[in-house]
């Protein structure tokens, strides 16, 4: 049947379709966003092909380019001209590639936009290799020879195998050095600092008797001895790790010598088979979640950020659960249900809508500058004037987020309590149970799904919150983990790293944003996954527990 446009419009159909379009658009946007993050975040770890091509500049000069294509875009030539670049006359639309050419130490830049049409003779030779380094970013080139001290040990064909073996050795040494520097020397330093504070404390309290001081001096001497031993060991290791190096030809034709001590891994993506690529992919992915960041957070892993986020959120939930539940139980079961309680209920509900930065300000002012400063005066006078708790740290961050998420827990628990039928309570009371027994044995177990939901939602919110944390405890790079092997193990006063802040910091404060960008996408993806998982588990737990107590609901 034929529908007339007029009739169709009169019935309001266009509006219905527009409304349908709005839903579709919103959904497409959500899924598109997740897709964008997933694609960009996950593709970073794949060993992309390294291309080699002749680049002919606008002035006709030719130059070789070796690198990986990181991005591409189509823009008008005029935009490039306005930005001060030379684009040949007559060209109106340019498709250009962002090529990661690496070798920042010799080239000075590691990314380059090139016009696709000016790339000629593009190929992917299998002998091109990538070296990931501890500094200066990736190295791209062609291996020439491998050195031991100043002696050439391999050249030409066999060089690649020799290099692989030597890198393994260098990495093993590097790990040893890292373990000594970070763990062993770290704990000696920590012990030294504790000794210093102990001595200062004794002085402050007037108990600095010669015996006590002698004890401290003895301990210090022991530590210094350990320290000296480690230094010696390190010296040997450093000597060994500095032994090997390789020479490779880079895109400009220069032959560059690179010490193996600074190389993390070498690989030839063009020569890899699919299985090798998949294996490589997962090893990179593992490195990402388990390793420390390198190069001002733009390379390597984000393990400390994951660790900090999880620890902070756990602490927060330990703090928020009892308080939230007690407040909800009070409001619903004990308080007189009058106008005042209703007002409080609305106020608590509204607190969930107060901007998180306000909680950050409160945390900074009240917890850190007020309570923290008093704690320092009372308990840590030996460390003054450098603050212990009077400065942003893990405890204050958790507390601030606990207050931030308190309304979530209270509201969810209250809803759960409200859903429990009166008859259940009355039945329990009629059987002679006291009010508390009714609460403890009957009401709370039945409300537990709601409580769990509240806590999980609180965790999901806390894990994604960044703004308040910027004021109360996160740092871009924490020297040590807040939970480690040094007494007292859990360092509540320490600053920590956080995934959300990591995204902000690396994406916006980093000197080399272009290089860091894929890593930020990966971090974002991980954060989204964690939060989605938490939310879904909230839904799951709620449904499961609801199922269990379904028989009781009337």
């Amino acid at each position, binding site marked *: 049947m034929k529908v007339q446009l007029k009739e169709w419009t009169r019935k309001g159909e266009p509006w219905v379709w527009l409304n349908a379009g709005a839903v579709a658009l919103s959904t497409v946007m959500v899924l598109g966003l997740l897709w964008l993050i997933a694609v960009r975040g996950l593709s970073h770890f794949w060993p992309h092909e390294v291309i080699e091509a002749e680049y002919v500049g606008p002035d006709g000069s030719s130059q070789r380019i070796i690198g990986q294509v990181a991005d591409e875009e189509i823009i008008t030539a005029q935009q490039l001209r306005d930005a001060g670049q030379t684009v040949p006359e007559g060209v109106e639309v340019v498709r250009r590639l962002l090529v990661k050419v690496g070798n920042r130490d010799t080239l000075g830049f590691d990314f380059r936009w090139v016009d696709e049409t000016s790339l000629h003779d593009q190929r992917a030779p299998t002998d091109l290799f990538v070296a990931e380094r501890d500094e200066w970013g990736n190295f791209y080139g062609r291996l020439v020879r491998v050195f031991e001290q100043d002696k050439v040990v391999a050249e030409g064909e066999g060089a690649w195998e020799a290099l692989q073996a030597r890198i393994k050795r260098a990495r093993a040494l590097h790990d040893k050095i890292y373990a000594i520097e970070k763990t062993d020397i770290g704990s000696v330093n920590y012990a030294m600092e504790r000794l210093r504070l102990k001595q200062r404390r004794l002085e402050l309290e007037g108990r600095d008797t010669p015996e006590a001081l002698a004890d401290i001096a003895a301990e210090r001497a022991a530590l210094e001895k350990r320290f000296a031993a480690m230094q010696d060991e390190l010296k040997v290791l450093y000597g060994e790790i500095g032994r090997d190096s390789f020479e490779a030809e880079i895109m400009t034709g220069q032959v560059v010598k690179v010490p193996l001590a600074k190389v993390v891994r070498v690989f030839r993506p063009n020569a890899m088979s699919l299985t090798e690529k998949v294996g490589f992919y997962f090893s990179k992915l593992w490195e990402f979640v388990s390793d420390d960041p390198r190069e001002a957070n733009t390379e390597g892993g984000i393990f400390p950020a994951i660790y900090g986020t999880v620890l902070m959120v756990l602490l927060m939930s330990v703090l928020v659960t009892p308080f939230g539940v007690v*407040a909800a139980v009070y*409001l619903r079961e004990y308080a007189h249900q009058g106008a005042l309680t209703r007002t409080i209920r609305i106020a608590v509900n509204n607190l969930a809508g107060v901007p998180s930065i306000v909680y950050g300000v409160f945390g900074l002012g009240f917890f850190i500058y007020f309570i923290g400063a008093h704690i320092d005066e009372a308990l840590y006078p030996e460390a003054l004037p450098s603050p212990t708790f009077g400065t942003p740290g893990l405890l204050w961050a958790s507390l601030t987020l606990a207050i931030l998420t308190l309304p979530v827990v209270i509201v969810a628990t209250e809803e759960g309590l409200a859903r429990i039928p009166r008859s259940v309570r009355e039945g329990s009371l009629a059987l002679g149970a006291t009010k508390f027994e009714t609460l403890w044995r009957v009401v709370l177990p039945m409300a537990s799904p709601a409580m769990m939901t509240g806590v999980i939602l609180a965790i999901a919110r806390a894990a994604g919150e*960044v703004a308040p944390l910027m004021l109360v405890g996160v740092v871009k790079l924490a020297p040590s983990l807040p939970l480690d092997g040094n007494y007292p193990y859990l360092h509540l006063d320490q600053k920590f790293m956080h995934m959300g802040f990591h995204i902000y910091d690396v994406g916006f404060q980093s000197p080399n944003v272009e290089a860091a960008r894929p890593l930020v996408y990966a971090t974002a993806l991980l*954060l989204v996954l964690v*939060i989605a998982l938490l939310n879904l588990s909230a839904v799951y737990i709620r449904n499961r527990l609801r199922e269990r107590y379904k028989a009781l609901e009337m």
Partner: protein
Amino acid sequence: MQSTTQVQPPAIDFDTPALRRRRKLRALTDKVAGISIGAGGVSVIVAVSLIFFYLLYEVMPLFEGAEIEQKAEYRLPVAEAGPTLYGWLEEQGEIGMRLAEGNRVIFYRTQTGEVVDDIALPIPEGVRIASVSGAGVDKTLLALGLSDGSYLLVKHVYKVSYPEGTTRVITPGLEFPYGEEPVELDPQQRPITQISVRDAEDTLMIVGAADNHTLLGRLFEKEESFLTGEVELTDAGLVLPTVSGKVSRLLLGPETRWLYVFAPSGEVTMYDLLDREAPRLNQQLPVTSGGVELADARFLLGGISLLVADVQGQITQLFPVRDDNNHYTLEKIRHFDFGGRVTNMAAEHQRKGFAAVSDTGTLGIFYTTSERVVLREQLGDTPLRRVTIAPRANYLIIEDEAGTVRFYSVKNEHPDVSWSALWSKVWYEGYSEPEYIWQSSASNNDFEPKFSLSPLTFGTLKAAFYAMLIAMPLAICGAIYTANFMAPRLRTKVKPTIELMEALPTVILGFLAGLFFAPFMESHLPGVFTVLVLMPLAIVVFGFVWSNLPGAIRHRVPDGWAPVLLVPVIIVVGWFSFAISPQVELWLFDGNMPHWLTTELGIDFDQRNALVVGAAMGFAVIPTIFSITEDAIFSVPKSLVHGSLALGATPWQTLVRVVLPTASPGIFSAVMIGLGRAVGETMIVLMATGNTPVMDWNIFEGMRTLAANIAVEMPESEVASTHFRVLFLAALVLFLFTFAVNTLAEFIRQRLRTKYSVM
């Protein structure tokens, strides 16, 4: 009787001591639990409300006035040396200095009046000091104009030492950096009745007035000897203008460019000494109204603003304002009505505040930027003669006519903020007109912090406005369809998907907006507008075409699955719009739309602008609005809908005439909650704008919001400083705004709920 055996209930004794104890224990547990839950609950609620009170507690001191407390009172130290010509307090407020008429400098303890040192100046017998002036508000170099036509430069210094470890000892003394000999200024040897001095990095300039009407001056170029460190002066020559009337005050600006000459009638003449050979008369301006006699005139800190007091108690602040032709005019900026004849004024050394005393015995403490009278106190009936402020503005010394010196401690923490300075236009030094400016810190002390919350509030509202502009249509229309038309099975999928977005950390949205969308949009700007036009068009056209398809195809898709059909349409249109963007740009905008906007339309374009923020924040707000609106529409009683449909209304008519009016309070509350979220959002704005505090509705320019401002500046602000408290105020404003908006929304929702329940 006893033949029938009664069935006895089993003999359970409920009253055994064990059970009694148990019952007692249970009762006790119950009581204890009740009390502790009560205590816990109340304390949690109190702790939460503490947020509000704590913010208020931090903000309150901003609006408090100053307080003074008298610490000591004593006779003028070494009164026989004559009245004070010039006074000073050293940094700690421990030692006071007074230059007495008898050519002596007396240092005394401010707490007791005990004389620490009494030094005679190297001035010849029979010559007296005719005028004194400091080289700047916070400088210790003094120029003394002598009665024999010469001048003497002297510096008072305070050496701090710790001879016994922790006790501080301050030793005052005098230095003569330019020689102990008085230097001739007037060859005719008339007394130098007015003097002004400026000691800059490489020049030294002294301007004096002989016998109150002839201007005389010396300009020296300074050269420091590398070996001895001594300063060598070379006369550079200076020509000064001739003035007609009497000179009652002389002020030389810090860059030795402007010379202000005051006549007793209250008229100021501003000379431009830029050309040392040919001074130029820049402007003449009567400062006091109706020729009221001048009482005192001096510089504010920084030497830009002048403070002029007249005998009727009016204090006027003036400063030169530059116009577009680089021409300076002295403007009267603001007045303070003090009352009583002002006898003396003193400017603060680190802020733009000052104190004044009058012959009626009143002390006033003022602040220029905030236009505040922070203190006005009657200190007795004796006329006050002189006031001196300590460098940290925490102590005052006041001398009265009776020769009594009083030493006060001052508590004046935040004079630089007032309600009007925070919210209305303020005329800051160096600006050509009053403006709203947020500029909280700078490198030096002379800088006037500019705490106007207006641009930040404006930025907040602008960001929220554009976010709502994008979010509202999408979220509300989407919710209408979802609640009203969508197939139930699809609804159970779509709703959680959109709601999942609410849990998405905003830092991710901000990062995508700043690093992906902003550059993408800059290079594909026409595409954005193409989408806005094409998308609705394409949807409607598709709808019409679909309705005209043969039933065989149409009926394959059940009612309420339209969004699924539209997904490919949306993807294709979106892709198409951005794919043709470069062509459109070439065709309509000379190949570069941002550039075209700037040159052709005069609209500034920032890469991180309000459009980007609007899109990203809109994205963050959509799930909030969507979810609540959807609930509100869905919970409209079905009987209403069915009734309307039964009466022959089309589904759309039912929606517009019945469902939406019924659900409108709910939709309104959804919008309010969304607005609250948009206003307080921090990370998106922080990452997706340039964070420049400008006031402009331009969608292609950025903004700075209250929340982002707190995040940026809070970690660096000094605890308990004005800046710190103003940031707390910003947080309090955010808190109150969102709290009020949410309460309103909640209230409306509750009303709606009761309304539905009776239907």
